[in-house]
């Protein structure tokens, strides 16, 4: 019998090396010691240097309760603290372009806006100083809790080479269709930056009658983020955000993707049935327009994107094909790995699942991202 010892660093099919893979959700985790030196505000640096730390975590459930042995979920694959760590990790999964975010998803949970703004400024300058010069693309963090300051931060660093989009967080505390966010959107459009919204640790259901009884990881990560992803997308569409900013593109990260068919047909059905309240949507009222410019589903196809991790396709190929078609995947899906978290999604499905033909795989793995980010 023929025997062979195999020792390859590549963890997905070898043909993945032949296709450009752009990964929209790659988390880097610089240490607090790395970041603190970049905080410019003296008072903020003094307070962030205390034993309390930069990003104290509110008590929350963790995947550890759902995994025998209490394995942590956030760092199942490790921690990338430096650009070379990112490259090493990406190579295992044939990821050519990891679009790095500095991974401070706990930032929206922090209380003090001065401190939060300082953390964002430090993270962006860290990226400019230590990540982008190593030929990695990054998303700038955007301090969305203060839309005027967010606009200032976008204008401060948004034109820097290497920053290809802005990174914020969707959740239940605010809806991005609110007009108070318009200064931020104006700055994004001005700098041709798509807005990438990731689920935030802040929006795990806590301190609500329903949320406090959501005790399984399956409910919390499986459902909670997608619910608020849909609510935010619908709000952006129905408030006329994309009528005011037609070139704005929004990417929902880790909020699920198979809900697109539901939203696509349901919003069109309800809007076409009763559209007469559009004139009193604050933004549409200000614009003096009685209707949306297009059907809700058309904004969904043209202005909204979703990342795919975890792809979680149905077992049967024909079912998967139907869902991909109904989800307008060729226009809306962007590959994401979520390295190094517990829901890591190497792109194996693109090379082993017959539901993904070459054209669709290319669109998801790189073409949509190339068009969107100009890379």
């Amino acid at each position, binding site marked *: *019998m023929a*025997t062979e010892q195999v*020792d390859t660093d590549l963890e997905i099919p070898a043909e993945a090396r032949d296709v450009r893979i752009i990964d929209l959700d790659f988390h880097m985790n610089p240490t607090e010691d790395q970041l603190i030196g970049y905080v410019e505000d003296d008072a903020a640096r003094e307070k962030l240097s205390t034993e309390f730390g930069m990003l104290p975590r509110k008590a929350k459930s963790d995947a*550890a309760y759902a995994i025998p042995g209490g*394995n942590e979920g956030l760092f199942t694959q*490790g*921690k990338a603290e430096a650009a070379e760590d990112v490259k090493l990790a990406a190579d295992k999964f044939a990821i050519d372009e990891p679009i790095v975010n500095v991974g401070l998803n706990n930032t929206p949970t922090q209380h003090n806006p001065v401190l939060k703004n300082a953390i964002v400024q430090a993270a962006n300058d860290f990226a400019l100083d230590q990540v982008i010069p190593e030929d990695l693309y990054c998303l700038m963090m955007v301090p969305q809790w203060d839309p005027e300051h967010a606009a200032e931060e976008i204008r401060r660093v948004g034109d820097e080479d290497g920053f290809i989009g802005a990174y914020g967080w969707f959740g239940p505390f605010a809806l991005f269709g609110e007009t108070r966010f318009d200064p931020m959107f104006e700055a994004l459009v001005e700098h041709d930056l798509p807005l990438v919204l990731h689920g935030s640790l802040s929006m795990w259901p806590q301190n609500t009658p329903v949320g406090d009884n959501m005790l399984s990881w399956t409910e919390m990560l499986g459902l909670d983020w997608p619910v608020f992803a849909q609510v935010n997308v619908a709000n952006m569409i129905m408030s006329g955000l994309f009528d005011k900013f037609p070139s704005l593109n929004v990417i929902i990260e880790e909020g699920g993707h198979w809900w697109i068919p539901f939203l696509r047909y349901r919003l069109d059905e309800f809007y076409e049935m009763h559209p007469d309240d559009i004139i009193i949507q604050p933004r549409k009222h200000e614009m003096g327009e009685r209707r949306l410019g297009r059907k809700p589903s058309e904004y969904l196809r043209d202005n909204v994107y979703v990342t795919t991790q975890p792809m979680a396709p149905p077992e049967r190929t024909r079912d998967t094909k139907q869902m991909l078609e109904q989800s307008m995947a060729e226009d809306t899906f962007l590959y994401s790995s979520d390295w190094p978290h517990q829901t*890591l999604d*190497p792109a*194996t499905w693109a090379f082993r699942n017959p539901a993904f033909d070459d054209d669709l795989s290319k669109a998801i793995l790189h073409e949509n991202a190339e068009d969107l980010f100009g890379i």
Partner: protein
Amino acid sequence: MSSNEYTKVTTVDDVEPERGMSVTVDGIEIALFKVDGEYHAITNRCPHQNAPLDKVGEKKINGEKCWNERRGGFTDQPAVTCPWHLWEIGLETGEHETSGKRVSVFDVKVEGDDVLVKV
């Protein structure tokens, strides 16, 4: 070198305890483990998403700063825990209990310094 239907895949000195090792026999990719002194061989692909199980026990990037320094692991069942999503695959059954999905389990024996697998 083969003995009956067994095929030599490596030597005992080359098998690192609590780590995965991948070998192929006639094109079949097998993960070999030595756990608590016992050798185990199963299909080298997790039934969930085809993760290579031989990566179990590999040190994570900056693993010394994580709760668990290494990827995946082993349980007393005995089971191997997948390096990607921590699915537990029984080393004697090949089964992932929650999903009911299975991979193949292969007999392993040691003759002298040789480790042999029956495919």
